[in-house]
């Protein structure tokens, strides 16, 4: 079967033939990224890039418009005592909060991303998932973060998973689609690779590791495996796909090592928030503290950085 996507024609591979992954080899490679020493100007440039790549996220049952508004304010005022800091890339909320978020970030350049498709479990009929998605888009969401049907995936129904993603992509219209694999439930890296391939061929604009509700989430091993899949997809089709590790990235060092992986596996084309995002809630403040430490030489306290 061949399909047309973004004006390019390519054939759909047999997903049972996705490349196998040797986990120990991946761990060794990842350990190598972690030995990279990121210092001085490299570090400062990296930290600022990280801020600009964050999808500031609140995805809780107890979310209220008040909470969302406060987070959106933070998204545009990361640390105003320090001039020249970028904004985050987007805020990420439930569909019911999209309207609030869109108003709160209006004109700031910060995008609004909405989770959809019965996030986080994805255990709902397809028509409900479509409505969920269309609702978020109609409320003004710029980006949709959908979850795949992990149960179907694990029972080998790859075509179902593929078709579902393609259908949601259609429902997204102009909104960019991030496909959450929920790698903590897929367990093996072979599955992560296969799910990445399915998502990209089905029309994902981004692939994303996790909902943040399941551990482990965005481990370096998983992110690395997905980056390799993105590179191979680019080589095979010429299409660039974005990457979003989400969940568990709460400190600057880990975020910097993510950037090291992006740089060395994919290259500088991916080092913008157009193609790389961090799904995180507490990362921003750690990055800010690191920036202040680098500039002043003084270790920082969390009390001096706003929590929203």
């Amino acid at each position, binding site marked *: 079967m061949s399909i047309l996507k973004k004006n390019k024609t390519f054939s759909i591979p047999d997903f049972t033939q996705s490349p196998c992954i*040797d*986990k*120990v*080899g991946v*761990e060794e490679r990842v*350990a190598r990224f*972690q030995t990279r020493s990121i210092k001085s100007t490299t570090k400062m440039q990296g930290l600022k890039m990280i801020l600009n790549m964050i999808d500031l996220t609140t995805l809780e049952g107890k979310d209220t418009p008040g909470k969302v508004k406060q987070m959106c304010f933070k998204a545009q005022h990361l640390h105003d005592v320090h001039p020249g800091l970028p904004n985050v890339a987007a805020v990420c909320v439930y569909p019911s909060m999209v309207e609030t978020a869109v108003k709160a970030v209006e004109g700031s350049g910060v995008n609004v991303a909405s989770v959809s498709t019965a996030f986080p479990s994805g255990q709902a009929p397809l028509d409900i998932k479509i409505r969920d998605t269309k609702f978020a888009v109609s409320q003004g969401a710029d980006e949709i973060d959908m979850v795949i049907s992990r149960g179907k995936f694990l029972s080998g129904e790859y075509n179902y998973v593929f078709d579902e993603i393609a259908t949601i992509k259609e429902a997204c219209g102009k909104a960019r689609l991030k496909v959450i694999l929920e790698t903590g439930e897929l367990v093996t890296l072979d599955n992560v690779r296969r799910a990445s391939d399915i998502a990209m061929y089905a029309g994902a604009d981004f692939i994303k590791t996790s909902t943040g509700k399941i551990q*482990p989430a*965005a*481990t*370096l*091993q998983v992110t690395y495996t997905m980056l390799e899949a993105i590179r191979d997809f680019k080589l095979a089709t010429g299409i660039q796909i974005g990457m979003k590790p989400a969940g*568990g990235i709460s*400190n600057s*060092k*880990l975020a910097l090592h993510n950037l090291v992986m992006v740089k060395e596996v994919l290259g500088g084309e991916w080092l913008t928030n157009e193609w790389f995002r961090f799904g995180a809630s507490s990362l921003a403040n750690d990055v800010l503290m690191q920036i202040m430490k680098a500039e002043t030489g003084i270790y920082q306290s969390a009390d001096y950085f706003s929590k929203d």
Partner: protein
Amino acid sequence: MERLNVLKTYKIYIGGKFPRTESGRFYTPLNKKGEQLGHICLSSRKDVRNSVVAARKAFGGWSERAAFNRGQILYRIAEMLEGRKSQFIEELIFQGSTKAQAEKEVNLSIDRMVYYAGWCDKYTQVLGSINPVASSHFNFSMHVPQGVIGVIAENSTSLIGLVSLVAPIIAGGNTCIVVASKELPLCAITFAEVLNSSDVPGGVVNILTGESKEMIKPLTEHMDVNGMIYGGSNKKIVQQLRESAALNLKRIQTYDEDWMKEDAQNLYMISDCQEVKTTWHPIENIGGATSSY
């Protein structure tokens, strides 16, 4: 009228066949009484070459046999030796042994073959190891045969020396070329006949008779021979073997043993013709796969 004896033509043993030497030469060793032992082949360097080719050809199949199967075949050799016992005793006596000595030598040879037959499927268990490396890998070492082994049997030993040297070599999956004792060659040829009737594939053991001086050089300098075993104490021969080993770094072992001693047999004679091979493979999940943070 007395019946005319049918005399035996002594041949050499190459690749499971019994040719005369390609050179056509022979010698006639005498026993202590001055009687001729026979017209024995004076093997040439070409016979050496042919034997190495045969041994190399046989190596793949022999080394890949199940260890259990090799054990059965070695045991079968012992059975066949037992069946030919009287012939070996006669030959030994003819070569100069006393009856008691001859009987002891043959019995010991049979028992020694049984001893090594038993080792075939055990030595890798005793000598091998699983190595607890610090990384997420399964790592094990096991003994594998060196390949083609040249054997120089000492003049003073006949059957027992031959069996003592050859059995551990083939028990370990190697093939070999044996230069038999010049003075006492009869049992070597009869031993070849035993091998030939014991399910030992052709080429696993090749036996040459003649002037060892003439054969040592082409054998030990042969680039396709992996190791040399010398059963003897001649320092010049030892030095010659070790010097020529520099050509392809073949492994040299020398034994200066009294093979008639009951304990002149051990596991380490098998491992002397083995290489240690170590294999690594990753193990998923040991050491944890979660984020290191």
